[in-house]
């Protein structure tokens, strides 16, 4: 079964990179390995004939989220390795407990859901058109909610960034630039 072999290869690839991402010392290496693990997940989706989900996974996780992580590491200078510093945080027991709980929760939810008893659809994969129609009719409310949530997050980010900029700029205002009046400065905050 070539599909089974492909599955085990991709699964091994994904798990290996996920493990490596947790064990490496430099944060940038970890982020890049995580990106590789994301790509492995995308390959798994493709193996299941879920074209749209696979490409979306690649676009969002490798193209955006990995870049976000990398940028955060760069801007915070968190990639410097301190020698002698233990790699795992002191509260790793709590982390393990949370991970086990989450895994158990997901496993129970999957085992109790009817999706295990449902037969796999005979047609290979859902066409993109069908996904679009479902998103625009049956699932339009969740879609809009996600949109509102993301817009809110975006506005929040802009507000945070604007605050910093106005604080930096005000004392440096030269004679040519318009000085912010005190009342105006108050209202900006």
């Amino acid at each position, binding site marked *: 079964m070539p599909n089974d072999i492909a599955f085990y290869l991709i699964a091994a690839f994904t798990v290996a990179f996920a493990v490596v991402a947790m064990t490496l010392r430099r944060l*940038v*290496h970890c982020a*890049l390995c995580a*990106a590789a693990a994301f790509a492995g997940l*995308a390959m798994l989706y493709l193996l299941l004939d879920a*074209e*749209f989900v696979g*490409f*979306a996974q*690649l*676009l969002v996780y*490798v*193209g*955006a989220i*990995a*870049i976000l992580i*990398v*940028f955060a590491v*760069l801007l915070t200078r968190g990639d410097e390795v301190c020698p002698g510093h233990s790699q795992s945080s002191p509260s790793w027991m709590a982390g393990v407990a949370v991970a086990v709980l989450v895994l158990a929760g997901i496993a129970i939810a999957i085992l109790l859901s009817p999706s295990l008893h449902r037969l796999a659809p005979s047609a290979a*994969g859902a*066409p*993109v*058109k069908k996904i679009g129609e479902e998103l625009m009719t049956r699932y339009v409310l969740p879609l809009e909610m996600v949109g509102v949530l993301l817009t809110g997050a975006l506005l929040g980010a802009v507000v945070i960034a604007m605050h910093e900029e106005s604080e930096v700029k005000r004392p440096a205002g*030269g004679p*040519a630039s318009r000085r912010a009046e005190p009342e105006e400065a108050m209202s900006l905050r």
Partner: protein
Amino acid sequence: MNALDPIFISTLHWLAGLAPASVRPLVSMLLVIAGLMAVFGSCFALTTILERKTLGRMQNRFGPNRVGPFGLFQPLADGIKMLIKEDIVPFSADKTLHFLAPLALTVPVWLAFSVLPFGRNMSAIELDAGILFFFAIGSASELAVFMAGWSSQNKYSLVGAMRAIAQMISYEVPLVLASVPVLMAAASLSLPDIVQAQSGFALGWVPRWNVFTPWGLAGFALFMIAAAAESNRCPFDLPEGESELIAGFLTEYSGFKYALFFLGEYLGLFAVTGLAVTLFLGGWQAPARWLEWFPSWGWFAAKFSALIFLFIWARATLPRLRLDQLLNFAWKFLVPLALINLLAAAVWLKSGVWRFPAAAEIRWLLCAGLLAVPYVWLARNWNGVAPTQRHYNYAE
């Protein structure tokens, strides 16, 4: 339809037929890959020499003219030079990432070619979500640029990489948004379907290419600007600005690795140009009915070359932007305009059912106005300063 049109496909079938039946799919796949790499690899070599010649012509000098007739063997000489140059890896560099970065840039770009329809029935794989595949694969190049900049352990490289990533993320938004109206019009994400949706002629002689609609024209312009920025082409080539960043994330690369970056960048330009041809210029369709005797792949090549020439022309003509201008331009001008373009495209598609007198003209004017008014307003105001209020801090 003529004998020349399916020549590549029939050659492929003939060559694959020589192999035993059990390995035939594999052989034909390999043949397609080899063909794509041969065509676009030589296209890369040809473009480097043509670009230098054209730049020379536009800047009133000769350009390379020593190697071979008219300097035509210059790319060959360059290639050999790159191959035999010493490959220098900085002492403090992250060796693995430094080695992997050029590969991580070049391999996904090759993959992007697999979904482009180069002629009638001529795409390597026909994916249901072809354009999504294209953008998903393209997004991997940002990580490659980051790997290159970070692994070099050099501040110029790091700043160059950060600039490049900021630029690529910013311009990916208008790039994708500009191509969404095309998907709306074709009602499909598959690139062959998009080409098919642009077949036929309006009024008997105007081809139904997307570029001949108001939203298509605006989308094409937006797409080309964003494409130039995505592939680090000239008005937007400041991640590699040699005068300020000594070539940015490429600073610590030499020899063949540098050549690979160079190759990856040009291939990225080719891929996105091919996508522009497919989305807006009707793909492999002929521009007039009496020109349909010319093979479809020939039309694709002609449009493709014209757009590549446009990029070279822009490089010869336009000065480089500053980084803050570049990012402001993307977020305050291109993105709003691309969103308005979506609206205009929606109006255009919905008004296709109008049947009253002069409906076509009104539809055209409405959509063009929907785009032209915000364009003028944004162009005058996006920088925060209207041109009439300009003042000079140091000259007054």
